[in-house]
């Protein structure tokens, strides 16, 4: 007789799944006119899921035969994902209505992608990992190609799909190797197996490498980054804003969970891989961005670079490293959402523009937007006292603690190179004369998002303790379990 599994830990996910289906029904019955309603309800369900997350679940707990883990780490990352998704939905509303792509599926797909992310973050075995990942990815493929009548968007969707499928294949292959060599897919059992020591076979190593490659694809780390610039550029801008934030948070969470959890005792085997992809990502992110003229492509390279920095924390493989990554991702989320809010407000004569040079003289035509974008850019460059500095500080701290000196030195040097293109945007906005002024006003939702993230980025240094403490707790829970 099988017992009914305890569903309490998965309550937020279950709620979100039900909400998604209900919203789908609502959309079907009411048609595309209900897009705004569906979008608001989507945001509402994110909020409710967030509440369920912090209030009901007692952590840590495992359920569904260990496939689903709820711990402080999961709560932290899920809140970030929910926040990123909710902000992305809010930011996209005006855009989809303006660009005639307001179909009710749009917010619902965001919702399902977010559900996938939450499952990924809570994955307790290789199988639930894969299920969450695919739920997320399939939704993302569709939204990337959501503007099916334009070539660029369809191309972005297709490219993302083909390469994404390839990476999922690699991941699965890696999972099958690991299952074959150890006889289990459960993270706890895997960790126990490796903790006993003994010989680590070559097949197992290959399996880990495949899994790492698949995950590196999802976080768009070099050398699996090729899709990023094209997809970022081709996808509709609010979708890009979504891609840049929530899926990255989820994928990094998954990366952490898999590497530090079951393979934590094999740190020496995978540390080199992570170090190398981290260095390559930082270098490519810094150098390839210099010559970009399209701001979405620039942001793509910038996010590759940022993933490189986040992976520094993973490479350290310590509690300090994990908490460094978490802090970095929280700050990354605020900076990127804010930057994309600016990008979404770049309109000239009711037409979206994406050229970096279109920002010239923004400080004269729209001082507030210029100020916030300048704050985000300086923050991404890691200049104190802005938030980005604390993110970098915490990962470098972890790297030096783990004696990864080369990694840290390359990291800070590339951050100087990266600073060049970030401050180039500041230069355009403040030093150059305006060409064409952007349409105003930029909309209430956008102003709200912009002000909120801007204030967070600028004044994070006043109250860093809550996020830092939460990240430390989350890291402890990950390493404990």
């Amino acid at each position: 007789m099988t017992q009914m599994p305890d569903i309490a830990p998965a309550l937020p996910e279950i709620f979100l799944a039900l909400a998604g289906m209900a919203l789908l029904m609502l959309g079907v019955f009411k048609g595309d006119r209900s897009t705004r309603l569906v979008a608001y309800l989507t945001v509402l369900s994110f909020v409710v899921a967030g509440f369920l997350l912090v209030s009901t679940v007692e952590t840590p707990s495992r359920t569904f035969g260990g496939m689903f883990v709820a711990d402080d780490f999961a709560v932290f990352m899920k809140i970030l994902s929910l926040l990123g998704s909710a902000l992305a939905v809010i930011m996209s509303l005006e855009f989809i209505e303006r660009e005639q792509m307001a179909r009710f599926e749009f917010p619902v797909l965001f919702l399902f992608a977010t559900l996938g992310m939450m499952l990924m973050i809570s994955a307790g075995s290789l199988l639930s990992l894969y299920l969450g990942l695919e739920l997320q990815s399939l939704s993302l493929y569709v939204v990337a190609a959501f503007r099916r009548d334009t070539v660029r968007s369809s191309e972005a969707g297709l490219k993302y799909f083909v390469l994404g499928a390839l990476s999922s294949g690699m991941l699965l292959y890696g999972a099958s190797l690991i299952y074959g060599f150890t006889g289990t897919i459960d993270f706890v059992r895997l960790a126990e197996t490796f903790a006993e020591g003994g010989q680590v076979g070559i097949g197992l190593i290959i399996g880990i490498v495949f899994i790492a490659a698949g995950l590196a694809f999802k976080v768009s780390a070099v050398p699996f980054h090729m899709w990023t610039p094209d997809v970022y550029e081709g996808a509709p801008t609010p979708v890009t804003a979504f891609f840049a934030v929530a899926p990255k948070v989820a994928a990094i969470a998954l990366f952490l969970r898999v590497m530090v959890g079951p393979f934590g005792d094999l740190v020496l085997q995978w540390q080199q891989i992570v170090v190398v992809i981290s260095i390559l990502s930082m270098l490519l992110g810094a150098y390839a961005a210099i010559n970009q003229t399209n701001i979405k492509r620039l942001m793509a390279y910038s996010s590759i670079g940022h993933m490189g920095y986040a992976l520094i924390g993973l490479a350290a493989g310590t509690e300090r490293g994990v908490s460094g990554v978490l802090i970095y991702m929280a700050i990354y989320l605020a900076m990127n959402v804010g930057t994309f809010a600016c990008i979404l407000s770049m309109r000239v004569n009711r037409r979206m523009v994406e050229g970096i040079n279109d920002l010239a003289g923004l400080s004269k035509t729209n001082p507030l937007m210029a100020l916030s974008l300048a704050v985000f850019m300086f923050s991404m460059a890691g200049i104190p006292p802005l938030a980005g500095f604390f993110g970098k500080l915490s990962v470098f701290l972890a790297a030096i603690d783990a004696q990864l000196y080369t990694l840290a030195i390359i990291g800070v040097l590339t951050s100087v190179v990266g600073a060049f293109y970030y401050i180039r945007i500041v230069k355009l906005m403040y030093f150059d004369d305006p060409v064409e002024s952007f349409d105003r006003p930029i909309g209430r939702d956008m102003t709200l998002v912009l002000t909120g993230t801007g204030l967070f980025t600028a004044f994070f240094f006043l109250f860093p303790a809550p996020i830092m403490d939460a990240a430390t707790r989350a890291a402890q829970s990950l390493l404990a379990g």
Partner: protein
Amino acid sequence: MGQWPILSLTTFVPIVGAGFIFLLARGTPETVARNARYMALWTSLITFGLSLFIWFEFDRANPGFQFTEYAEWFPAWNINYRMGVDGISMMFVLLCTVLTPICVLASWESIRDRVKEYMISFLILETMMIGMFCALDFVVFYIFFEGVLIPMFVIIGVWGSGSRRIYAAFKFFLFTLLGSVLMLLALIAMYLQTRDTNIAILLATHFDRDMQIWLWLALFASFAVKIPMWPVHTWLPDAHVEAPTAGSVILAGVLLKMGGYGFLRFSIPILPEATAYFTPLVYTLSVVAIIYTSLVALAQEDMKKLIAYSSIAHMGFVTIGMFTLTTQGIHGSIFQMLSHGVVSAALFLAVGVVYDRLHSREIARYGGLWNNMPRYGIVFMIFMLGSVGLPGTSGFVGEFLSLVGAFQVNTWVAFLAATGLVLGAAYMLYLYRRVIFGRLTKDDLKGFHDLSLREMAVFAPLIALVFWMGIYPNSFIEVMDASVAQLIENYEAAIQSAADEAAGAAAVALR
């Protein structure tokens, strides 16, 4: 006085003022500009008034940190907000608070575009500078140290004069950032040993000798760029030339001192063995800087560039004096920094006076200004002689003490550095002759009016300071004396114990 957080007040009053300007200055462009100017002036004067409390209440016999403040910041990481000044840093705080109102006044008429943003940038800059000198926590220090970059980058880029202002702004930003990030790594490495970033704890910690070498190099990368030392000085002439007058004043007056202060606060006391190891390197670079940049200054056609190169040469004296680790040397180097902060700031202001009238910095465009601007001629002469180091002016005391220190340690270094004095006199007098003396033949110069009342108000306090520091230097020396004595004592004790240890290890090895 104990209960008032006087240092935090001094540090944050400017940024509060900037906030007021940001929120309150509204209306037509003219009223906004006028309100912003007055609000900035009042804010900076209030800050100056507050800083006077520090000057008068400072206990000159106490070598330790005074007016200390503490507030929890990231308690879990042992990184906390700590402020305090000792005899070394206290006068730099005053230098900042003196120069900022002068900068505001000097920009009164020359800045017409985006006045509000300009004043906000300057006040933010003031907060960052004061905070940096007051910080007693390494992370707090680093944040202020780097935070300076943002307003300065904007000041050079937006209100700079030349066509190369953007290049200069980028160069300034990236050079200093490159140095600073390496310092950040050193800071992290130190933190991981002490688990605390309190500077007082760092000062009491002994680091392994090999580690000291690396840490010292990382700190050196940052401070040497900032001070700047040859060969990483190249950002300075560009930044000076392109920055608006007040920007140059702050750059020369305060920003360069951050490097020197960094050496005194971190490199020398925390890493004594590495300091001893690298002293020859510092001497060499400083001597090269003095001679080379003096020669370069001789050949300049641009007034601001000439003064910029002279700044590098003067900073060479500072580094030599500091690394002699003698009482006179360190007194001299601190004094030289203060004096240079006043004198070179005033020289840039003097260039600004004629630049506002002709909009050219080219020396050849001027000549014979004595005929219609006698008051300007006298003011310029005072500062020119201060820069040369005429006895009775502040420049003499600093250079003399630095050289006295150098002679005790290394005669050749002192000899070579002293040639810089001769060259300094040559290029400054040459500049003065070409600009002020001669016949007034150029037509566009004939209409110049002499210094206005506002301009006199700008120069008067600086003239007073130059003579005060030159004639009665003791009021400044006595402030730093106790702290410097403690610094040297601790340094020598550390070197001695390292030597003993090495001897002990050798003895063990022999046995």
